[in-house]
């Protein structure tokens, strides 16, 4: 067997970035390593600090800065939640007045008297469809690129990388004309296909990064035991790669969930709007129902934020690992 060991050398970084939660072992060291023979040590002068500890002033400054930054990060989100309590559509101009008349009426109006649930359903269908197709298609390619050096391998990687740089407007015009000729404008399938152009290359990258962290010995063992390449992939690697698949799935879902440009252009009727488009329809040239917009925003933000917090650690390592390599 002449097959050279071309174990991908670029997985180490992905690996190291996944384990970034460990804290630096610091402090205490000087006292812990003191030789036991030494008689009861003289009390250390109060001024000496261990490594990694900073002066009270520096700590206070750090806390101060972080608190200010946290407030800046938190405030816009709280603000829109606060505005959503004001019953009148012009209340956003006088936020102080909302205190006296806060009510949840906007939420009931949005939930029961607008197309909110239709939009929500549309978003779920489109984002779900994008996720399922995208991950299925990307997983096999990610595996092939990770394990086999076939001719055309480099070109494929390069294509996947470049596709991630496409500005929305490059493909928008041709996709619009093509979809309109195929009568796929204003349809779920059309939008899902469009979203696949962004998620598939990215997920393939991401999955390649994840497959690189799975030892090749497992594949070899599978092959020795008589599995076909597809059997190895399906029975051994896919079960091991579940976390990676989950990250790719969440990434696709969040991307499709929050996409604005294509959805605004390709979905024409309120019955097909996704949440991102529906939200804009509250404040167009003809409408300015800021209170309903704010309430809808809160309703959209909560599930998205919950999902995000559940997966964020993996998402970060996946994002940087995927883009770092070519």
């Amino acid at each position, binding site marked *: *067997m002449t097959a050279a060991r071309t174990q991908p050398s670029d997985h180490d970084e992905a690996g190291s970035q996944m384990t970034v939660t460990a804290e630096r072992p*610091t402090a205490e060291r000087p006292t812990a390593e003191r030789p036991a023979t030494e008689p009861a040590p003289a009390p250390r002068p109060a001024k000496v600090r261990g490594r990694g500890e900073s002066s009270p002033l520096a700590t206070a400054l750090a806390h101060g800065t972080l608190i200010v930054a946290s407030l800046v990060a938190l405030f816009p989100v709280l603000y829109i939640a606060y505005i959503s309590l004001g019953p009148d559509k012009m209340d956003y101009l006088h*936020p102080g007045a909302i205190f006296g008349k806060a009510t949840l009426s906007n939420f009931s109006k949005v939930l029961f008297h607008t197309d909110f649930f239709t939009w929500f359903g549309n978003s779920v269908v489109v984002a779900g469809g994008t996720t399922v197709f995208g991950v299925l298609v990307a997983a096999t390619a990610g595996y*092939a690129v990770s394990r086999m050096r*076939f001719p055309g391998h480099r070109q494929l990687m390069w294509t996947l990388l470049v596709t991630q*740089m496409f500005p929305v407007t490059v493909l928008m015009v041709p996709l619009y004309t093509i979809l309109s000729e195929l009568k796929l404008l204003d349809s779920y399938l059309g939008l899902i296909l469009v979203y696949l152009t962004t998620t598939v290359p990215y997920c393939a990258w991401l999955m390649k990064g994840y497959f690189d962290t799975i030892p090749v010995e497992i594949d070899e063992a599978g092959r020795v035991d008589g599995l076909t390449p597809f059997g190895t992939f399906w029975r051994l690697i896919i079960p091991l790669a579940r976390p990676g698949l989950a990250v790719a799935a969440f990434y696709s879902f969040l991307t499709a969930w929050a996409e604005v440009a294509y959805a605004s252009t390709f979905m024409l009727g309120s019955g097909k709007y996704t949440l991102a488009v529906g939200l804009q329809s509250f404040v167009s040239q003809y409408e300015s129902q800021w209170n309903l917009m704010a309430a809808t925003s809160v309703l*959209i933000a909560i599930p998205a934020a919950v999902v995000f917090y559940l997966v964020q650690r993996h998402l970060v390592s996946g994002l940087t690992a995927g883009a770092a390599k070519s």
Partner: protein
Amino acid sequence: MAVAVQGAPSRRSREREPRPGLVQRLKLSYSKYWYAYAMVAPVVIVLGVLVGYPLVNGIYLTLTDANSLNSARQIGLKHIPATYHFIGLHNYADVLWGPGSYDRFWSHFVWTIAWTVICVTVTFAIGLGLALLMNQKLRARGLYRMLLILPWAVPTFVTVFSWRLMLADGGAVNTLLGSVGLPEPSWLSDPLAMKAAAIIVNTWCGVPFMMVSLLGGLQSIPAELYEAAEMDGATPWQRFRHVTLPGLRNVSSTVVLLGVIWTFNQFTVIFILFGTNAPDVNILVTWAYYLGFGQQPRDFAQSATYGVLLLSILIVFTSFYRRWLARNEEATR
């Protein structure tokens, strides 16, 4: 059974063999790698149909005078065929140096470059600063982290709407500025203030990603390096300059590249903050969108031309950036 898991024979052995003919090579490569091709096929087909074909189609459109009046369209039951013509490179010439090209292209180009540079620099600086603070032993680190990534957790189209409320006349931002006696610019209508507002909002949205990635990079720098540096009497600044920054090189080169691509292509922030009727603050992406979809008649050809130009700019930048990184790495080795 030469089809090992990693099928590449070592380069040397391949060089020694005489080069077979093309057909034979194809046949050989097919029999050797057919399952790799089978696994890659779905992606290749999807990309070919959904990206390749539209891209070629789009490039062809840039060579025509297509707009929404002469493209194929359906009115009721009547199908009107396309009547646009091939006009060669006229669109490119018109965009780049035609009459009024300064207002149509170069002003947006300059603003796009400024926007990208300022946003990425500021975002990176703030993200690095926060990451350094978070990398210390501090109480409530987890809580800070939760709060600081909030702008990333909430979908951008939601938070940008919130900023629009805050930046409105009489909104939270101007109330705050007024209460400390600072001028209150009209963030959503004055051109210069609009640009500042766009940068502020985009920075707010982009800092969490930078911070979290850089924090990951910081935590992977071995503590021994700092210990050694301290033993040798390095000042905090020297430790930052000669331990932290080199240790972050990999992560930061990646996040800067990603930041540039994302900021350059940023659509949501500007589109939602100002709509399409604010030509001054439009970067090239939103301006191209306006040409193709925000006006009547829709100018498909010019919009596609902008798109192709944008993509070329990014590809050129990325290849130079990567070459520069590679050279830098060699220089420090």
